[in-house]
């Protein structure tokens, strides 16, 4: 079946990069076509009618025309601009972290509307003033919706139910490990992955991760995450994501810089 000449889709602009004299290549997360790249011709010119609707983190309705190498944006209409988010440096930094993760976990042209819905929800919460807790919830939910849900009920090596306070977390094995298995050198682990480092996981950390699973952010936001617990979750989820993606994400460095310089 031939590709239709025009396609309408709703999408979030994840990022953009300039090409040629006045064009941009956009990376879009769409509801119907997954992640795809499209060219927006002439949007770097001051009088471009499309430029404002194609900024990063804009949720827009696009008409895409079939192009030679990639689709061309033929028309656009803004659905949601998240204007308050853009006036906050921290909210922008967090939103871009989520956009980069969504980009990394979304294969090209494989529809996964739940990831787009998750990203839109995260941007709404950042627009409303919510902070790092949204980031952790987003990371967990993204892992779950991308097929990398960590095992939180049973030890990933011996499959016994986890005993409170007798567990660690293995990014390589994708879940909790009982301390008995850690002490025994992780018998039963797939070859090569048993030697990978395990991370400490507190009882409260495990409880929060379990709560993230199956609850909306509206329910999660009532959780009290004291700084040590927040740091533990950030480190654990970050390590798991790093293991899966095999590369460090770029966007978090700016949020860390803001915290370091005290401008956050």
């Amino acid at each position: 079946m031939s590709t239709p000449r025009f396609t309408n889709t709703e999408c979030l602009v994840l990022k953009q990069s300039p090409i040629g004299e006045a064009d941009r290549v956009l990376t879009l997360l769409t509801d119907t076509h997954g992640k795809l790249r499209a060219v927006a011709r002439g949007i770097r010119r001051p009088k471009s009618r499309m430029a404002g609707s194609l900024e990063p983190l804009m949720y827009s309705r696009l008409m895409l025309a079939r192009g030679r190498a990639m689709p061309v944006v033929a028309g656009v209409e803004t659905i949601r601009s998240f204007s308050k988010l853009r006036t906050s440096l921290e909210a922008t930094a967090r939103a871009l972290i989520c956009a980069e993760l969504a980009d990394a976990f979304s294969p090209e042209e494989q529809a996964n509307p739940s990831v787009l819905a998750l990203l839109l929800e995260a941007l709404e919460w950042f627009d409303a003033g919510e902070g790092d807790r949204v980031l952790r919830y987003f990371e967990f939910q993204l892992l779950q919706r991308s097929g990398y849900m960590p095992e939180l009920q049973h030890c990933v090596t011996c499959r016994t139910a986890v005993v409170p306070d007798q567990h660690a977390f293995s990014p390589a094995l994708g879940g909790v490990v009982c301390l008995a298995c850690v002490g025994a050198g992780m018998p039963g682990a797939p070859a090569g992955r048993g030697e990978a480092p395990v991370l400490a996981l507190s009882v409260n950390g495990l409880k929060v991760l379990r709560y993230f699973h199956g609850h909306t952010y509206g329910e999660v936001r009532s959780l009290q995450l004291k700084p040590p617990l927040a740091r533990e979750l950030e480190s654990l989820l970050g390590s798991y994501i790093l293991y899966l993606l095999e590369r460090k994400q770029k966007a978090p460095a700016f949020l860390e810089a803001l915290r370091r310089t005290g401008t956050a």
Partner: protein
Amino acid sequence: MTSFPHADRLPAAEPVVDLIEELGKLPGIGPKTAQRLTYHLVRMPASEARALAEAIVAVKELVGFCSACWNVTDRDPCAICASPNRDRSLVCVVEDPLDVMAVERTQAYRGLYHVLHGVISPINGVGPDELRIKELLERLGSDSNSTALADAVRELILATNPTLEGEATAIYLQRLVAPLGVRVTRLARGLATGGELEYADDLTLTRAFEGRQEFT
């Protein structure tokens, strides 16, 4: 220069192939454009081709960055920073040397500049350390401490682009500079001349309303 072991199988003379390859390395120049440019140069008078080659070499040998404003220049400080006719109480912060050219074309601004050479873009790994922000703070610090009142910077105009990254950079700079007692302003944003209201996006219209002024 590329060496080809099988020169008899080349599609064109070796210098032509070399030039196409070199031109193709430039941004926005694909293989077809590189070929067109190369054959244009082949047909061009030798004197013009030599002038082009000399201009390219001169740019690399004679051009550097102004130690005050980081604009591209062939002398240090640059002509703008060295000029006694510029208003030294104003510093306009831009992303790129091309932005300096754009503002100078208007002839409406008579202050100084500071070129960041980029914009904060977390998703591309560009943070404050990759830009000339430290140099801007040093400049403001030294200028505001100057005993010559005429040399003190009184206003910092943030002229980064009205993009997500440009706005983030402007907010970041405002936070850093505000404690120094320097007035921080931002270029007006809103509708472009020649634009039409019905085609303006929500953000542009919102900013246009926020920035409205007395009409006399």
